[in-house]
């Protein structure tokens, strides 16, 4: 690895590298979204790409999520590889008909005649006092739908490598970033380093309890792991990275070794990612579990504005510490 490649890169710049490299590699790739060209994107992920690739390939759209998402799906049916930026996950709700009724179903419904090689990128998550309509985590909405692939990168390396894989994939990929991670720095791979879907990664090895976390929650879980280590408890933090496909082998393998599992999910607790993962793990590991699976989720409320309430609603490292201690029967002193 060259010195340049080893240099830490911010998550937003890692995404930018992936987009730049794929735009340069494949003329069928183009970007569209609100304020992504002249304004460089609301989170500056597309910075500089307009100047480099021109307005035909880096397209500012009107504020019309259903329309431009559907248009990109149609363009993908014709063989182009559009990468759509939805400014935040909150606005994708306007485009759900296009994503669920069209993108997810076209390949199956028409007997495999047409594929939809589209990537729909968007950041989710809360923590910036943006209140209910700008702080949601809707990963589960997409993970529920057959025909979609769902990717939630937690590190700059994954952001780049998984986005490149997503762009080259022939199916619709929902690529969920996190507003709290754009400034996170770390190493990234080179132009040919693709990260395959369906491979979970162990972020920290441990023996006492498996902690499963994705996106920004990986970092919350790692902070909790540090705290627990100081108490002599070694948790294994695993990041699934993709939910469709899901690498259940790695998750279940770890849970069978530790006998304990805690799932940390920034989404709501009811019928969501943590609920789905827990079901998989009960089915796969029931006889190995020494305690019911623990879950740490966003509170089951619309996100409040007030800072103290927002922090109380979001999963914090202390919540994870408490959940692990409860799970392994040590309790909180």
């Amino acid at each position, binding site marked *: 690895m060259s010195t340049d490649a080893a240099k830490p890169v911010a998550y937003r710049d890692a995404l930018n590298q992936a987009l730049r490299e794929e735009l340069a590699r494949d003329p069928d790739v183009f970007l569209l979204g609100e304020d992504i060209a002249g304004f460089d994107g609301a989170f500056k992920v597309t910075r500089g790409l307009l100047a480099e690739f021109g307005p035909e390939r880096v397209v500012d759209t009107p504020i019309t999520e259903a*329309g431009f998402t559907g248009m990109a799906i149609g363009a993908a049916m014709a063989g182009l590889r559009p990468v759509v930026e939805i400014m935040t996950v909150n606005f994708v709700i306007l485009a759900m008909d*296009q994503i669920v009724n069209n993108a997810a179903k076209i390949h199956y419904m028409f007997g495999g005649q047409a594929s939809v090689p589209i990537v729909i990128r968007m950041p989710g998550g809360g923590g910036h006092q943006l209140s209910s309509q700008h702080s949601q985590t809707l990963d589960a909405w997409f993970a529920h739908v057959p025909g979609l692939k769902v990717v939630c990168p937690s590190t700059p390396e994954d952001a780049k490598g998984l986005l490149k894989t997503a762009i080259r994939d022939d199916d619709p990929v929902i690529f969920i970033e996190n507003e709290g991670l754009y400034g996170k720095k770390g190493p990234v791979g080179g132009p040919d380093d693709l990260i395959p879907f369906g491979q979970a990664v162990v972020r920290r090895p441990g023996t006492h309890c498996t902690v499963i976390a994705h996106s920004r929650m990986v970092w919350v879980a790692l902070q909790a792991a540090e705290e627990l280590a100081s108490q002599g408890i070694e948790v294994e933090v695993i990041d699934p990275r993709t939910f469709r496909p899901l690498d*259940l082998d790695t998750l279940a393998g770890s849970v069978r070794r530790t006998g304990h599992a805690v799932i940390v999910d920034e989404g709501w607790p009811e019928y969501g990612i943590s609920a789905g993962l827990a079901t998989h793990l009960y089915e796969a590991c029931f006889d190995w579990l020494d305690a019911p699976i623990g879950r740490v989720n966003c509170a089951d409320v619309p996100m409040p504005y007030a800072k103290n309430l927002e922090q109380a609603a979001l999963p914090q490292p202390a919540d994870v510490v408490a959940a692990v201690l409860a799970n392994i029967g040590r309790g909180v002193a």
Partner: protein
Amino acid sequence: MSTAAGAEAADMRDMFRSMYLIRRFEEKASEEYMAGRIGGFLHLAIGEEAAVVGTVSAMRADDPLTSTYREHGQALARGADPRAVMAELLGRSTGLCGGRGGSMHLMDKERSFYGGYGIVGGSVPLGLGLAYAARYRKTDQVSVTMFGDGATNQGVVAECFNMAGLWDLPVVFLILNNQYGMGTSLGHAAAEEDLYTRCNAYGIPAWKVDGMDVLAVRGAVAEATRIAREEGNPTCVELLAYRYRGHSMSDPDTVRDAEEKERWRLRDPIITFERVLLGEAVMTADDIAAMKAEVEAVVEDAAAFAESSPEVPVAELADDVYANPFNDDARGGALMP
């Protein structure tokens, strides 16, 4: 010989055959439905054949076409094999979409028929995207996206009008106005009943023609596709038409006035066009009789083929969920331990 609408005699014969095929195919499909061999919804376009065939006849073979769920006619007019279309309606393995789509979701991509879609208005952005791809690749294809009067009240359709006007995309918005959104009449649903005027707000040339007159339809759509192909601009054509049957086979059609239905039946597009063909000596009565007999045989053969076709193997249930499948269990999406 050619007519004012620019149709050569051979084109006119093809158009008549296509209209008659659609009529007889759908009547046969109706019988298959009543016999319990077709499930789900079956939306018939009987009465709308001129709108469908006039439109398709004005398109180039590689111009992408998208449609609503009332699209058997579009598939057939595009040249899809009647056997495969009927087999799809019966949910058989030989169906156009392998029994996955059924009546509402036909596609024949080889013939640039990009599908029928079940969500009102939901396919219009797809048609816009096909136009976008044509411009991106600098082909001179024109995308024609057909939708009904009901769809014009969906927000996403207005979004598409805006983007098409904003970016000058080669698309024809084709409103097949059959005057009813299921059982709700246009007057109960639309503030302005001249639907094409919606496009005025986006600078898109738009006009309305008699959708029961196949030559008028062909002429209007030919002009619309010319503008898109040569000038690179979107257009909108509203076709005023009427469907003779209810919204679907499960609709007893008791809402619409009997006198209204009769009035429109008097303008039957096939009978009207038959008179034109005879009057202009494009076909003789014998020619027409022979063509009808040939079409009858095609329809009967399609039904027999479909009825005798095998069911789709249940083992193939989860095939084709993904173009790049990630495991053998697409239902759960999990790599099972």
